[in-house]
């Protein structure tokens, strides 16, 4: 018993050990984060000897600064939100939404769409499970609109590249769009356009629930950091490279005429182009960011991004299994119109 001299207490408390580990990681993260700026200046202007005032110098500095910054931000914040998400599950969300009416239910469903772990590949079982347990169709749609649109990678990238105001604006408009579009879909009374087999299923209550310890929560959060970074890092690098190119070489205000607030047709056009396009947020945000820097208005750019991220062809193909074409069309149409209106609103407020 006397042989274990090295902090036996901590060894015997996996939870304490996990917290210490996460705390240490947080310190390392902060140190790295403060080092990025001096490091990027040193690389571009010292090591590579570029002129800070030149186009190339500007583009390279932008790239060398933004890539490590965004990747660090992504790992830290995905970790945090993933820990939060271990407290939520689709099952829990369904219980929370049970018995809620249109209106309040739509807003709650949109909010839960942010914190509930969700992959659009699970849209069908989730849809069936929700509708079967008596959650109104419109409330279910509010969830299905919010969950992919207000996606953590999108929000973190917006924060990293444009600051918290634009990120908050994006989250708020995502919530409003999901709430209103879901509410309207509910009002249209479209239950008959849900595939018949969905209504024939029964007894969707209960289901799979698991209990987790803190070390398990941290471990899962770390797993999702690795998983998401593995998926998006290349998009981030390419996106920022294109963004850096635009930042350094395209003249200021070059896009003001075609993507600025005065070009009224640019908002619906941006949304229309965005519907069939599908990319993860990681690739779109840096490019959209560079466009904003060159005179595209924020409302137009955000509308484009929401349309790309929130409405995607692959998801529609998946949802076709449970929705008749007419309902899919109403779904796309309602969300698209809501995004267009939000785009105009931003252009009006910020312009």
């Amino acid at each position, binding site marked *: 018993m006397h042989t274990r001299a090295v902090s036996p207490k901590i060894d015997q408390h996996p939870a304490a050990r996990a917290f210490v580990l996460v705390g240490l990681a947080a310190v390392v993260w902060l140190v790295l984060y403060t080092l990025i700026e001096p490091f990027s200046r040193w690389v571009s202007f010292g090591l590579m000897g570029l002129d800070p005032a030149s186009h190339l110098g500007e583009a390279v500095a932008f790239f060398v600064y933004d890539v490590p910054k965004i990747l660090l931000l992504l790992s830290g914040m995905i970790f945090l939100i993933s820990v939060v998400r271990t407290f939520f599950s689709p099952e829990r969300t369904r219980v929370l939404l049970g018995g809620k009416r249109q209106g309040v239910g739509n807003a709650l469903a949109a909010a839960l769409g942010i914190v509930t*772990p969700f992959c659009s590949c699970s849209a069908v079982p989730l849809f069936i499970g929700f509708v079967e347990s008596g959650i109104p169709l419109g409330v279910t749609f509010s969830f299905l609109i919010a969950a992919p649109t207000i996606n953590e990678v999108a929000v973190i990238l917006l924060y990293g590249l444009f600051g918290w105001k634009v990120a908050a604006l994006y989250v708020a408009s995502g919530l409003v769009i999901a709430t209103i579009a879901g509410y309207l879909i509910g009002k249209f009374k479209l239950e008959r356009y849900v595939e018949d087999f969905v209504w024939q299923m029964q007894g*969707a209550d209960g289901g*799979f629930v698991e209990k987790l310890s803190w070390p398990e929560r941290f471990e899962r959060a770390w797993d999702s950091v690795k998983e998401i970074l593995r998926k998006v890092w290349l998009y981030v690098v390419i996106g920022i490279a294109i963004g850096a190119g635009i930042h350094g070489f395209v003249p200021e205000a070059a896009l003001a005429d075609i993507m600025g607030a005065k070009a009224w047709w640019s908002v619906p056009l941006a949304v229309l182009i965005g519907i069939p396009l599908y990319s993860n947020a990681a690739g779109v945000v840096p490019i959209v960011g560079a466009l904003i820097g060159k005179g595209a208005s924020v409302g137009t750019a955000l509308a484009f991004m929401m349309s790309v991220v929130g409405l995607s062809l692959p998801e529609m193909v998946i949802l076709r299994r449970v929705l008749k074409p007419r309902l899919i069309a109403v779904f796309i149409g309602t969300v698209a119109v809501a995004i267009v209106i939000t785009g105009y609103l931003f252009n009006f407020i910020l312009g």
Partner: protein
Amino acid sequence: MLNVKVLGSGCANCKRLEQTVKRVAEARQIPIELEHVTDYAEIMKWKILATPGLVVNNKVVSAGRILKDDEVARFLTAPQEN
């Protein structure tokens, strides 16, 4: 012989889980009977809300997660405890 079902309609994550189950069972020489359930009506009988789901001896042990090898191994080696 363990009866193992992977629930999920052919999405990438579901295929990954199926591969993991196969690999783990082979590596640890656990005899299993593996089914991949892709029909939604059949999947929903297990009352899961997220895919992929994993069922071992008629009990749902996981839903909506891409399990790691050691997690799968745990489910395959100690199914009686559950």
